[in-house]
């Protein structure tokens, strides 16, 4: 067996060596608290501001508009709850989508429980929202629209600029969960009229447990973590300096190579998609075709095959991937994203997500294409659904 092939980069990525080296001095040498006044802490303050600048440049924001957080989930929570609580008692209406990450969905549910109204926009079969539907969903008291930049399961990129324009026209805040997009595809918060944006370092070879929320200057949202006066008094807690340094560095590197890397990964992605479609009968690509899809995302359903066993088989073959099948998660219900794009239970249980990264090579893709068809056909032979499916197919062709 060749070395382990890691195709779950949407779940998390390994920290880049260059990033780690940048972080290391801030553990044992420059470990001072940035809030202290003595000169020893000065390095840390400088490091923080340097990182803030790196993040700001990556999305075309001002450094003062970047607030460091404990990760993507915290950023999402802050954006939604912060915007809601800033209304000081008067409730109101939030628009989001059915395919958001649980950090958004569960925050929205929490607010709904407090009396806010939430509209969940449906998506088409490729996972995209309909702009007309968004326009129709606006109400007098709509104060926030939160639509993810790109979906973590099926890679669909939303028409963010258009959404931003619609929100701006109505003077409604626009937040986007860009955790899967930042560092992977170009983002410009000014041109796209984004008011708030969540990002997370470990999705682009930075460390885990650190992220940021971009809050456009002038946007009124309530503070979320109360304590000391860090982050201009808006997000208390002693800054995770090594993590923040890692975040800035990782994002800087990602942006430097974003053009070549997204082209390279798109090429590998399309090779993988084409290969699977050619070698495995009745394979269904979930999410959009080449256009409007994250460069690193591949998601298939194989009728007759259940996801969990597929992942176990791939693991035996040295490939790490993931599935939207309920059976691999704590819950028994299949992925809300796959159900939202109209998949039936049998298809959503048989989904396989492979997400490429900077370390993914052509050899890796070839190995997957050599291995996967045999695994699928063996599992299909064990499946009563496949037997029935083939029988029906034959009937149709006769």
């Amino acid at each position, binding site marked *: 067996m060749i070395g*382990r092939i*890691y195709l*779950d980069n949407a*779940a*998390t990525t*390994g920290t880049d060596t260059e990033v780690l080296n940048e972080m290391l001095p801030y553990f044992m040498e420059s470990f001072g608290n940035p809030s202290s006044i003595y000169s020893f802490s000065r390095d840390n303050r400088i490091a923080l501001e340097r990182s803030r600048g790196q993040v700001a440049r990556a999305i075309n924001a001002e450094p003062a508009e970047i607030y460091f957080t404990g990760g993507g989930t915290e950023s999402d929570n802050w954006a939604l709850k912060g915007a809601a609580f800033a209304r000081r008692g008067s409730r109101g209406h939030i628009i989001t989508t059915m395919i958001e990450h649980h950090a958004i969905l569960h925050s929205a549910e929490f607010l709904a429980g407090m009396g806010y109204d939430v509209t969940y926009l449906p998506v088409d079969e490729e996972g995209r929202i309909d702009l007309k539907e968004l326009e129709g969903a606006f109400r007098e008291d709509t104060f926030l629209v939160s639509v993810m930049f790109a979906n973590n399961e099926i890679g669909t990129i939303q028409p963010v600029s258009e959404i931003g324009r619609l929100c701006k026209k109505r003077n409604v805040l626009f937040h986007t969960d860009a955790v899967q997009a930042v560092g992977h595809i170009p983002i410009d918060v000014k041109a796209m009229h984004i008011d708030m944006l969540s990002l997370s370092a470990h999705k682009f070879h930075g460390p885990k447990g650190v992220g940021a929320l971009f809050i456009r200057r002038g946007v009124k949202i309530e503070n979320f973590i109360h304590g000391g006066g860090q982050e201009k008094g808006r997000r208390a807690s002693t800054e995770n300096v090594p993590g923040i340094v890692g975040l800035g560095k990782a994002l800087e590197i990602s942006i430097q190579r974003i053009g070549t890397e997204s082209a390279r990964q798109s090429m590998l992605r399309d090779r993988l998609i084409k290969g699977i479609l050619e070698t495995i009968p009745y394979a269904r690509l979930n999410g959009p075709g080449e256009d409007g899809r994250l460069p690193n995302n591949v998601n298939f359903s194989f009728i*007759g*095959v*259940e*996801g*969990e*066993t597929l*992942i*176990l*088989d791939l*693991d*035996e073959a040295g490939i*790490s*991937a*993931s*599935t939207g*099948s*309920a*059976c*691999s*998660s*704590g*819950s*028994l*219900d*299949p992925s809300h994203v796959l159900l939202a794009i109209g998949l*039936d*239970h*049998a298809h*959503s*249980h048989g989904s396989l997500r492979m997400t490429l990264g900077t370390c993914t090579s052509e050899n890796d893709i070839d190995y997957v294409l050599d291995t996967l068809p045999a695994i699928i056909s063996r599992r299909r032979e*064990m*499946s*009563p*659904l*496949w*037997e029935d499916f083939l029988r029906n197919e034959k009937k149709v062709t006769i």
Partner: protein
Amino acid sequence: MAKHDLVGGSLWEQYSSKVTQRVINPSFMGDLTEEDAEKKGGKLIIADWGAEVCGDAVRLYWIVDPDTDIILDARFKTFGCGTAIASSDVMAEMCIGKTVDQVLEITNLDVERELRDEADKPAIPPQKMHCSVMAYDVLKKAASIYKGVDVSRLEEEDIVCQCARVSLKTIKDVIRLNDLKTVEDVIHYTKAGAFCKSCIRPGGHEPRKYYIENILREVRMEMEKEELSQHLEERDFSSMTLIQKHRAVEKVLDEVVRPILILDGGNVEVLDMKEHEGSTEVFLSYLGVCAGCPSGQTFTLKKIEDALQENLDSHIRVNIV
């Protein structure tokens, strides 16, 4: 990296090695044909079972000796997660060599026990027990096909929790015996609802006929009613509320006094009751022939007062209005 980084990766760590082995290489996976059945001199049975909500499905093949009812061979096909495959595999193995009636005794709990590496360590994580139920359901279906009866005839009692096979009667009994007050207590005592949680309350993974929350509410209500009526009988008259006293008085009148008065064509009604210096004043009015009866203020009055004092309290005074 690998499994630990995947969504829900920790779930797999909770599988026993027997489960993992059977998922990767199931021994009884496959099918049986009429030809196979002929060779072995048995009857081919093919049973399908689908768990609607999950989308999981299993197909069980048996060759049964029609003279002895012994299952000569068994195979299966499964569309489902690791637990569904491993439990189908064990279940097929457990069928072979047993009679159809014997295999009806096998439940998903036996299957899970068979998959354990160590006797006291579960083979699968709790939420996956749900996925082992399918192996039991298809087995029952196969037996019903062989016997030519409806599958519901083989279910002898109402099962509330399929994962842990806990019946409605067991849950009711345990609530009463242990005076359980919360859903958590019921889950803790019976193990019902501890697995896929569908049977705790509506809105879970799959719709169920019974929900623990409702059963608990009903049993608690029954228990309260029983307690209340017991209290009424046992409770000291002096500590009753006025309404309770009125009921108690009416009850004695109904049971002891009125039957006699009605025989003579009369009756009595309670107009009012008052608490007065430690005694209870009952104001009655005669009806029918009693209204003009001369003993109404003497003999009959005394009899009524005696009846109330004997049955309820010596501090009751009766006044005729």
